[in-house]
């Protein structure tokens, strides 16, 4: 069994101190220890983007980060977007545009889009394509996803 290390961090605005196993990925820690299962596991080798979260504001593949690297950092997951029961504008636009079929890629897509709108409030197609370059949608909802992001940017 892998050694455990105590780490302190904030997750969706709350301070937390927990033990994480040295051999654990951030993805596994988020799902299995923090029980935040909105973050999905797909390929676990950095290729699909289902596991996208924001680490200190930047989108990363949580399957390619060690859980212990979270120490001292800020984590934002899909669960952290809605405030007081109200959805984030990106979540609402994804629903309004039906920007998914199975929905498996959606949390990752929204987290990448969230970071995009933070750094570029008025993104063009090229910006969106770049931001989503690591998020695959096996259902092929890309057109609707782009439209949802553009409409969210207008709000």
């Amino acid at each position, binding site marked *: *069994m892998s050694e455990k290390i105590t780490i302190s961090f904030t997750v969706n605005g709350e301070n937390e101190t927990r033990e994480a*196993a*040295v*051999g654990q990925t951030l993805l596994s820690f988020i799902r299995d220890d923090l029980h935040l299962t909105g973050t999905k596991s797909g390929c676990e*080798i950095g290729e699909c983007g289902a596991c996208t979260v924001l680490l200190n504001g930047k989108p*990363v*593949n949580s399957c*390619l980060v060690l859980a212990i690297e979270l120490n001292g950092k800020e984590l934002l997951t899909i669960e952290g977007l809605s405030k007081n029961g109200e959805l984030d504008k990106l979540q609402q636009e994804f629903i309004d545009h039906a920007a998914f079929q199975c929905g498996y890629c959606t949390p990752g897509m929204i987290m990448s889009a969230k970071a995009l709108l933070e750094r570029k409030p008025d993104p063009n197609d090229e910006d969106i394509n*770049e931001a989503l370059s690591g998020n695959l949608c096996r259902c092929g909802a890309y057109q609707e996803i782009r439209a949802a992001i553009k409409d969210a940017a207008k709000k």
Partner: protein
Amino acid sequence: MLSYEYVKTGNLQEVFKLLESREHVYPLAGGTDLIVGMRGGKFAPELILDLKDIEELKELREDKKGITIGALVTLNEICLFKPVLDNIPILSEGCHSVGSYMIRNRATIAGNICNASPAADTSAPLYCLDAVVNIIGSDGTRSVRVDEFFTGPGKNALKKGELVQSITVLKPYPEGRGIYFKASRTGSVDLATVGVAVQSWGERVKVAIGAVAPTPVRALSVENAVNEYGEKDWSKAAALVNNDISPITDLRASREYRYHIVEVLVRRGLEKTMGV
């Protein structure tokens, strides 16, 4: 679950000691090669040494020598660094072609060359720019040219106990255009089937190619024809690239396809950088 020890320290002397303390010690930068490799069984570390507290590896600056990029600088940071964009945009093209936006938020240029894949996308641009790799160890520092740093597939010139500290592109910067073409099966998140970098320096040209030999290579036959013999027919010059490469067939492409596409991309690169 994977099992290994993990240490993160900002103290370089301690780092050098730890690097020599076990047989299988792996420095951790962005982890995009290391974590995938551990999971796939390619690496079995006893100790993971997280470099991210080491200040000496974080510089990103331009001075009178040139541009220096610390080992911990991410590929996205390089793509946005103005001196790179203004003076050596071919390097930002190479960095930008790696993986995806998220991968580039973590991945470093030092990790890319230390992993020493012949397909490493920053390598061909670095070869064209005659970049220098600055190495640090308990005995002090030394520098090697990037083409001496790559010694074989997955192999580099680091000795046990050493780290890459930074990469420098020395002045004078190239006067002329540079371009990096990556042929791959998908628009993003795929390694290069081949990578072709072409950089003009006034009337002269440098050409480097990835994923066609055990290490990235310079296309010296092409360069020689253009630079020494004044060849201006770019198709003829590009055809000579067959002398410089020894591609293999793998899951990305056949050997024959690689010969073909490299020649096409070298010709296009010459047209774009040297004029039609």
